């Protein structure tokens, strides 16, 4: 087990190095850098000014040199300065992380706490009206883009309550906090909830046919105990995989949701930085997202071993 974890961690490192190269190259392949963008806006261009600025930002160096500078800085904890605000990248990114983390955490919590129980109910009452209703609702959850859902929620809120609270770092009341965090989280988590529900349902249907479920009933266990204690624990593995993958996909959903709800989180910031070709911000943020995804994958694999005793990561 220990050897396995060490090997996995080494592999994660290799993956991250690969990702860093891809990010770096892709960013430079996109036409135009911040200097082009600035000077395009100005109209008159003095090529020496442009060259000076490029030199100042280190954009005139060969691409491998730029990459090594970035990675070297990263290893020293120096993430460089934002081209736009000229503040240290870390200072720009750090305060935004908790906002997005809260949203993402709430969205995942929402999708698991709604999707799993509803999936169990749907499977236990297979073929009932409840089952059909939930399958239709979940299908709509899968097909509704989160930005559209977000807009619908905004419009509904305005037409029902006359307003929609805008983001505020220190909400004063519970309802305000709910509106600021929970509503966007639900908008972005609805898709995951629907997916989680469908996976839970199909996995439960499979498990409920197993012999050991009949054994549990023959022992005199109640239906609740049969469904949750005996069946769900066996059915949860594919659900965890899906939630793990969703955790990674969430970032995409958050970009639009943060934009729609005007939340100053990491995801929206990334899009803005990309527009300005603010390389230090984009590179480091995407790297951060990559770390989150890789760690989420690792966590899923570890959870597998913790839940199913038959899974042992050996040599």
């Amino acid at each position, binding site marked *: 087990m220990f050897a396995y974890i060490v090997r996995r961690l080494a592999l994660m490192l290799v993956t991250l190095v690969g990702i860093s190269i891809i990010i770096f190259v892709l960013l430079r392949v996109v036409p135009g850098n911040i200097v082009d963008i600035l000077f395009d806006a100005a109209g008159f261009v003095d090529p020496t000014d442009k060259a000076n600025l490029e030199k100042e930002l280190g954009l005139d160096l060969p691409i491998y040199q730029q990459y090594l500078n970035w990675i070297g800085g990263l290893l020293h904890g120096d993430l460089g300065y934002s081209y736009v605000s000229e503040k240290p990248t870390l200072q720009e990114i750090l305060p935004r992380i908790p906002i997005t983390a809260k949203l993402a955490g709430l969205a995942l919590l929402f999708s698991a706490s709604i999707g799993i129980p509803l999936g169990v109910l749907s499977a236990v009452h297979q073929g009932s009206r409840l089952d059909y209703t939930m399958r239709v609702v979940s299908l709509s959850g899968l097909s509704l883009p989160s930005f559209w859902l977000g807009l619908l929620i905004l419009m509904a809120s305005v037409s029902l309550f006359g307003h929609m609270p805008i983001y505020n770092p220190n909400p004063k009341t519970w309802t305000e906090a709910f509106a600021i965090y929970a509503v966007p989280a639900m908008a972005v988590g609805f898709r995951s909830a629907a997916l989680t529900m469908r996976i839970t349902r199909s996995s439960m249907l499979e498990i409920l046919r*197993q*012999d*050991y479920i*009949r*054994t*549990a*009933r*023959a*022992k*005199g*266990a*109640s239906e609740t105990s049969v469904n949750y204690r*005996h069946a769900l*624990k*066996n059915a949860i593995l594919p659900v965890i995989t899906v939630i793990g993958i969703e955790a990674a996909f969430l970032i995409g959903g958050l970009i639009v949701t943060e934009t729609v709800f005007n939340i100053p989180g990491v995801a929206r910031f990334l899009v803005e930085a990309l527009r300005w070709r603010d390389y230090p911000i984009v590179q480091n943020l995407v790297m951060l997202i990559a770390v989150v995804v890789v760690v989420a994958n690792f966590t899923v694999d570890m959870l597998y071993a913790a*839940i*199913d*005793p*038959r899974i042992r990561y050996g040599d």
Partner: protein
Amino acid sequence: MIEARKDDTILDVKNLQTVFFTNSGLFRAVDDVSFTVRRGETLAIVGESGCGKSVTALSVMRLVPDPPGRVVGGSVTLEGTDLLSLDEAKMRDIRGNRISMIFQEPMTSLNPVMRIGDQITEVLRLHQEMTAKEAWAKAVEMLRLVRIPEPDRRAHEYPHQLSGGMRQRAMIAMALACRPALLIADEPTTALDVTIQAQILALIVDLQKRLGTGLILITHDLGVVAQTAQRVIVMYAGKKVEEATVEDLFENPKHPYTRGLMASMPAVISFGAKTDARLNEIPGMVPSLTNLPPGCAFAPRCRLAVDRCRAEYPPLQEIDANHLAACWRATELVGAP
């Protein structure tokens, strides 16, 4: 209550009827089956696959999957209580407590993500007032009782760490943990190696004697019946076709189907069958339950069938003392097949 138990009867099944509603129509998986089990007695239910043995057992446990199945008639009385009229909560108090069941497939009948000890503890805590610690100690004691070596360590293990025979022992430990009045063993040895089969069977019979449990042993193996049972009922296409003590049945089977089963059994030395003879098979197949012939369901496969057999279903009659058979020609059949 005392009246009902005067003759030590623990289970009394009368005219049990279980039907299944399927797309191809309704079929009677168990049709008008009656039997009793006395304290400490072993009743074997014998028949081919699909004859209704397992559904009979599940009907007694009230575990027939509904839909598609349902018990539609008859009564099941356990220790004076009519099980079919109990509500689900009361029935749960009986399952695993007064009646337990062991299933055919030990490889899949235990929950793969629960420790063996926890699975036994669960049944104890469901039915008896015990702390977690007491229940665990009792679970280990049960594992010792079913002769699992190192029960302390095994209790902490998961099913995949145990062999098939060990798992079936664990199932037995679980089934007997609450000292049930009745144990139903549905082909408990079919999935096991031959050497293990004998051990498991011996263990079940030994524990049954020690604990005074009534046992219903469902099997298609007449060798197993001869070794363990006192009484036998033979089922065919959902109906009971013969019932007798094990001696009567082997010495003087009265139903052509029973005779066919015995003739198709390889050399049962203890009953003096010819060992060099070719095995006899029963021609044909078990009829589909959705499409039964009007008369005796066995008639199409029966060498002795006459016109009456194909037209009218033969009633179950007492041919000899305590020997019932449902065959128009039963009285003509004498001696071992």
